[in-house]
C-alpha cells in the first residue's frame, strides 16, 4: 500500500485520489493558489474506519504545524468508546452553507467558484457557525478560532483504509 495509493483492504480495484503534494498545499502558500479545479472531501467508506486518528493528526500537522486534535477540521468521533462504531465527520461542502449565513463577522464567505473561504483573522470565536452546522464539522480550536475544512485532502493521504476520498466537484451545481 502506498500512502496515497492503493487501499490495502480491498486490493487493487480502488485507488485513492491522486496524492496531495504537501508542498503544493502548504499553508505557507495561499490556499487554492495551485488549484485549477475544485475538489471536495468525501467519506467514501465510513465503515472501514479503524479509529486510528491519523487523518486528524495529518490535518493539524499539515495545515497548522501543530500536533493536535483540536485543530483538526476532520473529526473521528466515537460512540460508546472503541467498542462502538467510529464515525467520520467532515465538511459537506454545502451548496447553501449555513455556516456562512450564521457568521456575523464575515470570516466565512462563499467563493465565486463554490466552496467556503475561512478568514481566520476575522473570526471572533463567537461559535455561531458551530451551532449552525448540524453535521458538527466546524469546531473552535484552543485559541477560540473556528476550524474549517478547506478540502485540501491532507487527511486522504494518511488514511490507511481509504475511508476518505477527494472528488471533483462538477462545474454546474448539482445535488450531492
Amino acid at each position: 500500500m502506498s500512502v496515497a495509493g492503493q487501499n490495502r483492504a480491498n486490493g487493487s480495484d480502488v485507488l485513492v485520489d491522486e496524492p496531495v503534494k504537501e508542498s503544493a498545499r502548504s499553508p505557507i502558500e495561499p490556499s487554492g493558489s495551485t488549484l485549477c479545479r475544485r475538489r471536495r472531501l468525501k467519506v467514501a467508506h465510513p465503515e472501514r474506519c479503524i479509529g486510528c486518528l491519523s487523518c486528524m493528526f495529518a490535518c493539524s500537522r499539515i495545515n497548522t504545524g501543530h500536533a493536535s486534535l483540536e485543530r483538526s477540521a476532520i473529526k473521528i468521533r466515537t460512540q460508546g468508546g472503541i467498542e462502538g462504531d467510529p464515525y467520520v465527520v467532515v465538511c459537506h461542502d454545502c451548496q447553501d452553507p449555513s455556516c456562512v449565513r450564521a457568521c456575523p463577522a464575515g470570516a466565512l464567505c462563499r467563493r465565486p467558484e463554490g466552496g467556503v473561504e475561512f478568514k481566520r483573522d476575522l473570526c471572533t470565536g463567537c461559535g455561531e457557525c458551530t451551532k449552525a452546522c448540524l453535521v458538527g464539522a466546524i469546531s473552535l480550536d484552543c485559541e477560540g478560532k473556528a476550524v474549517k475544512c478547506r478540502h485540501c485532502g491532507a487527511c486522504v493521504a494518511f488514511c490507511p483504509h481509504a475511508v476518505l476520498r477527494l472528488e471533483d466537484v462538477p462545474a454546474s451545481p448539482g445535488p450531492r
Partner: protein
Amino acid sequence: MILVGDDMLRRVLFIDLSKEESWVEERDRLFETWLGGTGVATQLLLEECPSGADPLSPQAPIVLAIGPLNSLFPAITKTVAQFKSPLTGELGESYAGGRLAMAMRFAGHEAIVIKGRAQRPCYISIADESVRIRDASSIWGISAVRAGVILRDVEAGVGRRSIIRIGPAGERQVRYASVTVDTYRHFGRLGLGAVFGSKNLKALVVSGTEDVVLPEPRRYREVYNRLYRQVVRTDAMEKYHDIGTPININVLNQQQALPTRNFQSTTFDQADSISGETLADHYLFRRVSCAHCPIGCIHIAMLKTAFTPHHEFEVQKVGYDFELIYSLGTNLGISTPEGLLQLIETCERLGLDAISAGVALAWATEAQEKGLISEKDTLGIALRWDDVPGYVKALENLAATASDFYADLARGVEHAQGRYGGADFAMALGKNEVAGYHTGPASILGQTVGVRHSHLDNAGYSIDQKAAKKRMDPADMVAQIIREDDSRGVYNSLVGCLFARGVYSDSNIIDALAAVGISKTSEELASLGRSIFQEKYRFKVREGFDLSGVRFPARFFETVTPLGKLDRSALEEMLAIYRKARGWS
C-alpha cells in the same frame, strides 16, 4: 499549548489520594537524562517507593509515563506503568496502548504519580490541569467493562479521552489483576489492578485539549512521512494487520513449541480449531487501532450465543491475541472458539491478567488431577481440560477469592505451589506466570533475567526460532538477549509499540527525536539503554530479587521443544554466561 524542543515542559503530576491533593512538578533534568517512558518511570519509582514497602500499602506508588514521541509519530502509542508488583514483590512494569498516551500528552502530563489510599472507593478525573478525586462507591464491585460504560457517560472529553479501570479482581487485590485501558487494551501483567484496588482507586479518566507546537514543522513532516510510509508499507507489519498475533498458534504448533495443557505437550491436536486463521475467517468482525497508529492490530471477534431456541442471541465483542489463545486456550486444552472467547470475555469482565489466570488454572487442573488439591478446595469444581463452564466458575471464584484455595491461587502459581506442592509444573519464572512459547532455552532464560520476567523484555522466543534455523551457541544467544534487554529500554522510553520496532531503527529514532528538538547519538542511546537496565535491576535487587535464587520448573525439561528436549544444566550454564556477561559473577 505544549512546546517541544528547547522550551519543552516536562511535567510530572503527583496525586496523593490520602491527602486528596495534587501538584505538578517540572522535572526537565529527569527527562533530559532519562528521555521519558520507562527511563523516567524507573527513576520516579526509585524515588517514590520506599525500600521494602508493601506493594499494596498506601506508600507504594503507581507511576504512569509517556515519552517524547508519543502522539507525534505513528505507532508510538504506549504508556508505561511502573509499580512494585504484588505478584513478584519487585519491579512491576506493564505497557498499554489505546488512547491513554494521547490523552496524557494533550493533558500536558508526561508522567503521573499516584500515592496514598483513598478513604473510600474513588476515581480520578484529569482534564488538562484540573484534577478531581471523585466518589466511586456506586461503581465499586461492577465489572471492568461496565465501569467504562458508566464513566463514559458522566465524564467529558468524548473522542480524545482515555478511561482506565479495574474489575472485581483488582478490588479484591488478586495479585495479577489487570487494568483495562479503553476496552481491549490492558496493563495486564504483574498486578497493577491489585495496586489500584489497594488504593481504593476504581478508575482514572484522562483528557486534554492542549496541542503540541513543533520547532520545525517542515522537518517534522518530512520525518513523519517517511516513518508513516514505513509503518504502513513494510512487510514486517503485515502479520499484525491480517491474522494478527494469533497467526502464531498454527506456526508454533507446527514447530512443536505451542504450550498445551500446562506445557505437558508442545503440540495441540485441536490447534486449528482455535487458530488465528479460524478466528479471522469465522469470528473476526472488526479491527481497531490505538490512537495514532495506522496498523489496526486490535482484533475483535463476535461471540454470538443463542439463549433461547427462538433465534434470540447474546452478542459479545471480544478482543483476542496470541497470548490469550495460548493461556486460556491451548494451555487449558480448549477445543472450541466459542469456549475460548467465553474465557477471554470472563477475564475481561473480572479484570484478570489473561496469561497469569490461564497459567494458574492450568496448574490447578493438574494439581487436582494429581490429588494435591481437592474438590473441597475448589468449592466443588472438578477442573478438567476443555471444561469451559468449570473454568468460568473457577475464574469467578478466583476473582472473588472465594475460598482459602482461591485466595492462594490469587497470589500466583509460585505462591500456590509453595502451599500445595506441584512445583515441577507451576509454570512461573521470576514468580511471573510464563508466556506461550516453549521454543527453547533463550525463551526461558530471557523471561528469567528480563526486568519484568516477560517474554517481551528481550523476545528470547525469537532468538530460539532463529537458532532452530541456524545453529547458535549459548554465548550468542546470551549476547542477543542482552542486546534486546538494553535496546528495548530505549524504545520503551519513547514509548513505542513493539510491533513497530522494526521501523524504529536507531537512525529513525534519532531523526524522530531530532524533529522534536532532542539531539541524541547512537552511542548515547546505547549507553542510555544499558543504564536503564541497570537502574531497573537496582530496584529489583533493592526489593529482594536474586537471580541466583531463580527456579526453573522441571516441566520445561520434560516437554520437547523445536530444539529438542532441554537440559537443565545447559540452561544453568547459559545463566552463568549471562551473569558473567553482565559483570555479575
